[in-house]
């Protein structure tokens, strides 16, 4: 029936997204487009239009702004990583930001009452997990759709946060909590870390390639492997160089990357992660091969709760305060779900990656940051975010409809 070997654009898109690294491409393109627009096009446009300007000022791409961008996106990214895990199951969590708010508020109150910072952080992480797991139990064992359970959670936790913080905000000055955002790695340590990451990445890739060859499996071309290593290396070193030229690599970013790497490893390389993908792809199939679908659901919601708590801690650390609007009442929830989806994680379950969520968070963060810099109003920001989100979901829907038609 297909006599012509012509591949349509949508087919190309589909094929690309099937590959391991191809899934990064759309979100990377989006990021590149946004950065080019705000970083290069707008300044040049301003310079051309304003004859009094001395020289072009690339504010957006200045190291200082990139540093702020990373820090701004960190909380969104933390939540987005957690939300990605439930999205993989085909569920959704609308309560993540409210959970983060409750956890941050609790943290503030605990620290104020004299609990040491690290104990307070551990308590708050435990509370977040319990909040998530409780919602998971309602979804898995009682059978309420996750949308409804977490919508109830969103409302309930917003109220809970107001109960904990009757005044609406609270300063957090505990040095341990503040340390996450304040501590900077020395320049040399940043470089060493980047080099170590690249070496480890290359080592694992090469070793895997050798094993594959030994066992007589299909091997990828070595140019692909080294291309990936080079790309990853360039990304790492460019990031470290940029951050170092303003201040240096903040501990917060290192922690975020470590946590993401851990969650990424669990979801892609363990039987547990495989079962998450299996449930998202075909629940019936997962059940028949003996997976405990209900327990997997609950655990995934516990992971979101934990990530939300960590997001709350990061937020409290960065802002130096806990306020209702910064978490539960603000745009954090929609931004983090948007980040996960823009990263290419399917709302229908079974496809996505936590690394894409980080990139998605950067897209959302860059958009907000860029529009702020160019003096756009809050209304413009909202509308732009809406368009980007819609585009991301459209890409998901189009590439999905192609792959399920038989």
């Amino acid at each position: 029936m297909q006599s012509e070997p012509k591949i349509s654009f949508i087919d190309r898109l589909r094929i690309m997204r099937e590959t391991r690294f191809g899934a990064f491409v759309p979100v990377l393109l989006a990021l590149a487009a946004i950065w080019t627009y705000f970083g290069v096009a707008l300044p040049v446009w301003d310079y051309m239009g304003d004859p009094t300007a001395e020289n072009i000022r690339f504010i957006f791409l200045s190291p200082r702004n990139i540093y702020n961008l990373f820090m701004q996106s960190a909380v969104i990214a933390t939540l987005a990583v957690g939300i990605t895990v439930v999205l993989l199951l085909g569920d959704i969590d609308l309560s993540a930001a409210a959970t983060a708010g409750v956890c941050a508020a609790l943290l503030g109150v605990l620290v104020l009452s004299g609990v040491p910072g690290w104990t307070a952080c551990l308590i708050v992480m435990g509370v977040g997990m319990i909040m998530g797991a409780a919602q998971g139990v309602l979804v898995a064992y009682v059978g309420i759709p996750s949308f409804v359970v977490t919508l109830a959670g969103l409302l309930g936790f917003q109220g809970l946060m107001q109960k904990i913080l009757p005044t609406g905000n609270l300063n957090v000055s505990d040095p341990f909590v503040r340390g996450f955002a304040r501590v900077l790695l020395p320049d040399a340590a940043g470089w060493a870390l980047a080099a170590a990451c690249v070496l480890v990445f290359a080592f694992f890739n090469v070793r895997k390639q050798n094993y594959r060859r030994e066992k007589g499996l299909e091997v990828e071309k070595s140019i692909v492997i080294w291309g990936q290593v080079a790309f990853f290396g360039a990304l790492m070193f460019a990031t470290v160089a940029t951050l170092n030229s303003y201040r240096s690599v903040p501990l917060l970013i290192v922690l975020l990357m470590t946590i993401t790497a851990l969650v990424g490893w669990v979801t892609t390389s363990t039987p547990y992660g495989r079962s998450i993908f299996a449930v998202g792809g075909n629940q019936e199939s997962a059940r028949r091969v003996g997976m405990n679908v209900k327990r997997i659901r609950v655990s995934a919601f516990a992971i979101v709760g934990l990530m939300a708590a960590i997001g709350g801690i990061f937020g409290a650390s960065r802002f130096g305060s806990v306020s209702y609007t910064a978490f539960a009442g603000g745009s954090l929830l929609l931004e983090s779900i948007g980040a996960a989806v823009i990263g290419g994680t399917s709302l229908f379950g079974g496809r996505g990656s936590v690394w894409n969520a980080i990139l998605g968070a950067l897209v959302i963060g860059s958009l907000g940051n860029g529009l702020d810099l160019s003096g756009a109003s809050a209304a413009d920001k909202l509308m732009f975010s809406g368009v980007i989100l819609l585009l991301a979901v459209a890409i998901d829907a189009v590439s999905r409809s192609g792959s399920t038609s038989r």
Partner: protein
Amino acid sequence: MSLSKKPVGRQAPPPHLRVSGIHKRFGGVHALRGVDFEVARGEVMALVGDNGAGKSTLMKVLAGAHPASDGQFFLDEKPVSVNSPNDASDLGIQIVYQDLALCENLDVAANLSLGDEPVKSGWKFLPKLLRPLDDLEMEVKAREAIDKLQVKTLQSVQAKVGGLSGGQRQAIAIARAVGAEGTVVMLDEPTAALGVAQTRQVLDVVKRLRDTNHAVIYISHNMRDIFEVSDRICVLRHGGNVATWKTAETTPDEIVIAMTRGLDDEATNAI
């Protein structure tokens, strides 16, 4: 139709799985009324019958999905009991349901080892669920399973199942069933939704199963497929046996008549 053709009787190979006097009641409905059925290793036994004849019920009883109300199971002539799907799979009885139950978002290798993923050794301090997957082992196993069934059109075990054809999916579902140490493989309408070329592919896989000494139970409505692939044909009607024929000694017409009208002298015992 001459009576001598009808029962296979003593000339049949020794059965691997044999059930006798299977009754199954669903409340007031008496779905199976004392069915005898057997399948030997290295043969394809077709199970045919009109809608409501009890094919699916018999299959589910054999797979342990519905425990039988009454009746005996023998594996290599030793009495066994099958009351749950786990009992059945412990005895090596595997079923490929019509809906296949594959995860389209995962690749072929992942689907073949789903629920029993190999993990790397040496991570004993982690719980089983969090040990690193041995992807390579998974692929090697998948490759072996696919090669054993000679699924020629499948290029790579790293391909996502969502991008495969219906025939390839069926083959992978069969490979998954066989891979789990299965000796008896039940196929429910494996070619129902497939085109000509893909049907061919699945029939080739079924023949491969026979050649590798599996006992295959093949349920279908398609006479052409049945006559191509089966060694014996067991006809059910109204929840009872009509008879079992050797495929080489019968004709589609005879089978269709047996399915719809039964045999004159068997009619009494069938109802």
